[in-house]
């Protein structure tokens, strides 16, 4: 009965969605209009910000406030996880059966950990030139920590310094925004010179913000992973 009702509901919803979407004039013909934001970003984004990756310039400057909110949401998830788990009793069930990882896994993890961190750093430093950016690089770094949790259990993650990094990166993001308000005209304005095209030092504040985001996301996701693992970090 439950299944029948939900099927009927969903069929109605999907038919409605598909019919409505079919008739809507989507995509190409809309963006051709020059006063549309998308076209403006494509035509002028590169000259204004100096970032070769237009998506990055949209994410960090034009829609930078969204990105601030997005970083905040990850921060909320990390704190919320800590708050929800705070009153939890320590789980003892798995302790006695726990065995350390095999030599192959440990060696592999030790070998791969710096390489993955290096790759993550590459991704977020080159966010304004190539596909990638702070979030993607941060996630890659967090995956390195996940590997460390899985492979080398004896290595403790310094959660206190992680929290410091997270907090400092957040403050730097907000601080750059306020600096834009002070030296420029609006919050999160790109007040630094745009630099040489296609070089690492281009795009004004974009690389700085992306480095801050990379550190913040990496620390937060590592904290989330540490929280979700049964063992108390």
């Amino acid at each position, binding site marked *: 009965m439950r299944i029948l009702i939900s099927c009927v509901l969903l069929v109605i919803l999907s038919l409605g969605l598909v019919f409505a979407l079919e008739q809507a004039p989507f995509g190409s013909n809309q963006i051709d209009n020059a006063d549309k934001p998308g076209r403006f970003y494509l035509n002028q984004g590169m000259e204004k910000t100096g970032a070769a990756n237009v998506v990055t310039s949209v994410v960090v400057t034009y829609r930078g*406030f969204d990105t601030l909110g997005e970083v905040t949401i990850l921060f909320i998830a990390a704190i919320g996880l800590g708050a929800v788990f705070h009153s939890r009793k320590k789980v003892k069930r798995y302790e006695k059966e726990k065995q350390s990882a095999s030599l192959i896994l440990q060696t592999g993890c030790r070998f791969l950990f710096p390489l993955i961190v290096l790759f993550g750093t590459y991704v977020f430093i080159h966010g304004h030139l190539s596909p990638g950016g702070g979030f993607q690089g941060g996630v890659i770094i967090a995956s390195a920590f996940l590997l460390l949790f899985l492979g080398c259990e004896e290595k403790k993650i310094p959660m206190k310094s992680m929290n410091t990094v997270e*907090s400092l990166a957040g*403050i730097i993001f907000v601080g750059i925004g306020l600096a834009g308000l002070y030296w420029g005209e609006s919050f999160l304005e790109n007040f630094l010179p745009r630099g040489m095209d296609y070089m690492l030092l281009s795009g004004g504040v974009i690389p700085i913000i992306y480095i801050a985001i990379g550190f913040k996301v990496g620390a937060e996701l590592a904290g989330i992973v540490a929280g979700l693992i049964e063992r108390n970090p």
Partner: protein
Amino acid sequence: MVAVLLIIVPLGLAFAMPLFNFVSKRIAAYLPIAAMVCNLILSILLLPSVMENTRIVILGGLPPPLGIHLVAGPLGVGLSGLISLVGLAVSIYAWGYIKQGAQDKYHALYLLLLSGATGAVLTGDLFNLFVFYEILCISSYALVAYLGDRNGVESAVKYLIQGSVGSGLILVGIAILYGMFGTLNMAQIAIHIDNVDSPALFLALVLLVTGFGVEAAIFPLNAWLPDAHSSAPSSISAILSGIAIKVGIYAVARVLFTIFGVAVVFQYVLLLGLATLLIGEICAFSQDNIKRMLAYSSVGQVGLIVFAMCIATPDGVGAGLLQLVSHALSKAVLFLGVGYLVARSGSMSLSSLNGIGKRMPVVCFACVVAAFSLVGLPPFVGFAGKFLIVRAALAGKSIFFTVLIGIVFLATVVEGAYFFRMVQTLYFKDAKRQIEYKKVPASASIPIMALVVFIVALGVYPDVLLPYLKSAAADLLNKAGYIKEVLG
């Protein structure tokens, strides 16, 4: 330009919370108070100037149709003032009330919740509205489960699942609107929307209203509310009932009035609001658990506010906004007061509160004042709100509205019945067992009494608020004016 600080100050303090913890663990509780005082002062300073003309705050260095911008109009700044007022009271209360769990995390989440609410009422960009709405929602999911007890976690799971389906639907709506118009600026969408007639538009409207309606708890999307509001810590219940629902209503109103502005839909939403009112009040009447009763009463009040707003005349919207203010103040007082009543008596059932009024006179007096204000007795602010709603509804002299107002009166009678039952329990029943009552700390009684003073003062002199309400209603209803102010 200053309006951006309303969002940035709480956000920055929340980011800095771990650093302050290294200095001292005790600082965490003071940060929300500091942020809210700052916000309150800023809002009050901004309000007179934005009354004259709306300020557009550019973000990221691009003018409105291209970048994100904040709209510091009378409605946005007024609501942010309300948020910081209630937020200040609740944060002072929480300073003494929250004694267990990770307190620094509580205060950080609380700050983020308030900054999300402030951002949502100020922003002028559809996707940015979604982002701040999500900040509000996600921090409230975490806060509902803050104590980690059975009911809290369970209701947080329910809230999370319903809320995230809702936000998914909002995102689909935004995708459709972006696909059709190639912009996310609410004013620009509003310009283009009049020229297009397409079923996709109707779909987008339904999706957006449904999505934001989950937070606003409009029937039939209110299943999460009684559980979440009754299982959360009382300070969080107060902020959820007082602020979070209001942001949902604001978002629904913004979508309905400013973006779409289609008069055909108002009647359906009005009927939905009426259904919400009736269902909320009737369910509240049948509750024995006092926090659940208050939560259902919130559902009913939301219905009333939605009803008033969907009359869609300046008077109606203004009355709805006054009722919104009244409900935010009264329900905050009720939840805050009941928090200590429940903590002292050790149970949430009404019968355990028999005769508690003689033991805890201050808190109970405040609860009674707030309850009377919600029922709509003079000289409290609730009376002014309900009176204006009735006047606005009867202004058109249509039989339809006369019948509807009859139903509203019926709901008010039900509401009065259970609130008087509460008053009777508090004062006129003998306590079954004697409990040692400790004194309520000043950190609780001062904010409660301050809010009570507001309830009474605004009830006696509602004229103070009326010009603000008028321009806020114009801000919401005057689509052409909004577009002109944003796009120049």
